[in-house]
């Protein structure tokens, strides 16, 4: 029997490439200065779902919530083998914290009624690891975090979880939501023939922007929306249209979305600049080692 899988993915700034310009004065991340990438552990989540499909059949649907630019990670998911990509984008979702985000995602996932939901363990920008668990809670799905191995047998999943100082094996009934560790697998590369086709996949919001560009300022809004609709249906027939949902499409309660639905209040952000930089050389002699130890004891690194 096949399983229908949903994978939640996020586009994040590449925080491994933090340089001087990557932080703003106030200590927040300057997203414009960092390349936007596929959140690494979301790739592991996608790989896990693709393996389920390879083994048992079924479908893999990928959901990303965010600005239209998030279509890049959706396209990448299609290159790697996802069957369908869905963008949730809505200005009213701006400033959502993890609670609001997981609420919005839950409204979307509920429409799809999947057997399994996969999330990366955490995103490298916020590093909260909260969205997966909160989403499971709202869906009423069993939550299994820190997945490293997954075996499916009918309505049951057997999972090896990383618990930090070892692992445990658990069994869970489906439907369930798993958060996936980077140690679970090596994500497969994009398949080039798919990539060369699906590089043309677009969401309606992107198509509308392209129409703006080609028709120019002089065209009427009606002409633009007619042209957008024409191109969207053209893309649909080629199976290249990325599904796009707003908060109304997923019947979300606006009180739970965006700033209004986000209890997290940032109290203070501290910009900590590590002031070190000088280094000291100790010669590899007995007296050198002794003076190194002396310093380490003195500044309480050891002892």
């Amino acid at each position, binding site marked *: 029997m096949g399983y229908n899988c949903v994978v939640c993915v996020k586009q994040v700034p590449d925080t491994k490439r933090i340089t001087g310009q990557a932080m703003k004065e106030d200590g927040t991340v300057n997203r414009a200065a960092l390349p936007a990438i596929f959140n690494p552990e979301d790739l592991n989540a996608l790989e896990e779902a693709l393996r389920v499909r390879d083994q048992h059949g079924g479908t893999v649907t990928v959901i990303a919530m965010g600005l239209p630019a998030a279509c890049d990670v959706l396209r990448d998911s299609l290159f790697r083998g996802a069957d369908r990509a869905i963008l949730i984008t809505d200005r009213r979702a701006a400033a959502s914290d993890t609670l609001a985000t997981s609420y919005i995602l839950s409204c979307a996932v509920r429409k799809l009624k999947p057997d399994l939901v996969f999330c990366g363990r955490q995103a490298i920008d916020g590093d909260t690891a909260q969205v997966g668990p909160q989403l499971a809670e709202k869906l009423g799905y069993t939550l299994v975090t820190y997945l490293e191995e997954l075996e499916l047998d009918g309505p049951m999943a057997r999972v090896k979880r990383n618990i930090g100082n070892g692992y445990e094996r658990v069994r869970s009934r489906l439907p369930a939501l798993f958060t996936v560790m980077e140690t679970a697998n090596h994500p497969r*590369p994009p398949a080039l023939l798919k990539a060369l086709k699906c590089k043309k996949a677009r969401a309606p919001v992107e198509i509308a922007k392209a129409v703006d560009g080609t028709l120019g300022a002089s065209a009427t809004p009606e002409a633009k929306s007619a042209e957008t609709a024409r191109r969207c249906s053209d893309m649909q027939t080629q199976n290249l249209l990325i599904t796009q949902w707003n908060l109304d499409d997923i019947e979300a309660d606006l009180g739970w979305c965006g700033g209004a639905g986000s209890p997290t209040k940032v109290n203070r952000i501290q910009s900590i600049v590590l002031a070190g930089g000088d280094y000291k050389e100790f010669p590899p002699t007995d007296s050198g080692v002794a003076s190194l130890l002396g310093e380490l004891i003195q500044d309480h690194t050891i002892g």
Partner: protein
Amino acid sequence: MANFFTDNEDIQFLFQHMNLARVATLREQNFRFAKEFDFAPADAPEAIDNYRRILDVIGEIAGERVAPTAADTDTVGNVLNADGSVTYAPGIAEAVKLLGQADAMGFILPYRFGGLNGPNLLYTMSNDIVSRADAALMNIYGLQGIAETINAFASEEIKQQYLPRMTSGEWTGAMVLTEPDAGSDLQAVKTKAYQDASGQWFVRGVKRFITNGCGEVLLVLARTEPEIADGRGLSCLLVERGPRVRVRRLEHKLGINGSPTCEICFDDAPAKLIGERRRGLITYVMSLMNGARIGIAAQSLGIGEAAYRVARAYAHSRKQFNTAIENFPAVRDLLLDMSLDVQAARALSYFAAYSVDLEEGLGACVAAAQNAAPDELKRLRAEERKYKAFSKMLTPMAKYYASEMSMRVSNSSMAVLGGSGYMKDYAVERHLRDSRITTIYEGTSQLQVVASLAGVIGDTVGEVIQEILGDRVWPHELETRVVHIREGQALLAESVAFVKAQTASNAYRDLHARKLVDIAIDLIVAALFCDQATASPKKLLVAKRWLAERMPRLRMLKEQVCSGETSALTDFEILAGPLPVAD
């Protein structure tokens, strides 16, 4: 994320600079495939975007997944199992799987078999990238010419049967040519092929030194005409791995340990004839071999690139006498010689691959234009002939220069690292070991020189240089360099004339062949650098240094060729001394 395409300044430059639009237009036959396949490009800009995406994926696999396994693969090697099967090193097995998942194992095959229809130039770039990560992987990834040979010459039935499984990476191939007594001289092949009453072919014999001989699809050169003793009695047969094919030995080698080198027994193994009888060596294997030679040139580029990078980084960080060793003039000079050597080999090899693409593409145009106006057909034929002559000369030249470069550069890299480089702690000793085979297989350097010589004697060199330089107004700094190239061409012409005048035998020509080819390569590379210099300030410096270094050497070579020196012919016995007596 390590990406061996995006982090390579030189490949990036050549990708921009070379005429990929022309290559793509020919390869895609004016983009006619776009109607049939939704992933085929509709115009040249889209094709180039596709090419960039393809190399981007290959570059990431090479940098992220393959390079970290190369040292382990070198240590572990392959295992010959009791049942005659071979288990790849884990890194190689994983890499082949990944490249298959990425649809890269059908790189040059047509779309209809699941291939990417990539041009030779792009495939050469990808081999360069892959070999930098692990030279041994190229011996499997870079063997796609086997599938291409099936595509070019086999029946439709055989193509349908084998090619889809080769593009998916499920099956790999081997070119099965060498025997104990038939190495450089393939005309001496003894393995025989015969038919039974029903017409079924069988192969019987022993082949040796077969790269990836454990693959599933073996293209075997065998004698089908026992009465014809030379190359015209040989045919090309496809043998599928099976109970009558046994790998009985894996060689223990100096380098490329991840590449299984097999001795294979064919015990009346069932076979299928590829193409026509008697054309095995003279048509099919020569075609396969030319592609393979460009492949080895690209493998050499990857090794040279990897070895250079280790030395560049080490010279920057290693301190002696209170300063980084890169601050010593002798080390700087050495590093720049290495860097220019890599760039020269890459320029030459890519241009050779480009010529092959033009030759093949124009050939397809000629075939498709039989009803065109006679003038148009004549023009196309002339163009095709031109690039055919180019690639015939440039292919062995690129193989010769690039492979020798990889040895020089990895040797110099070890010089920069000194004692540390001699130890197993750094990758340099692996690069040096890996490089050594490149001047030997797919024809030794001496054979590449022989294969290039006709073009040098017949002035294909002049036509190539003219094609590269064209008729244009050069900026002042380059104008003087172009004058140097013209002077060099005059020296080459003098040398050739001197050699031609020695009419008694071809021995004098053969004795000095390598020097003639060296002069020709220096000049072609100089022309390529001058052309590149119009688009890059760095390449202007490269062109200047190249000519400053090479012009004096060129004059020396000319003097040697015109010296009449023949001691190797006349006084060999005395100079070589007595034969060593066996202990």
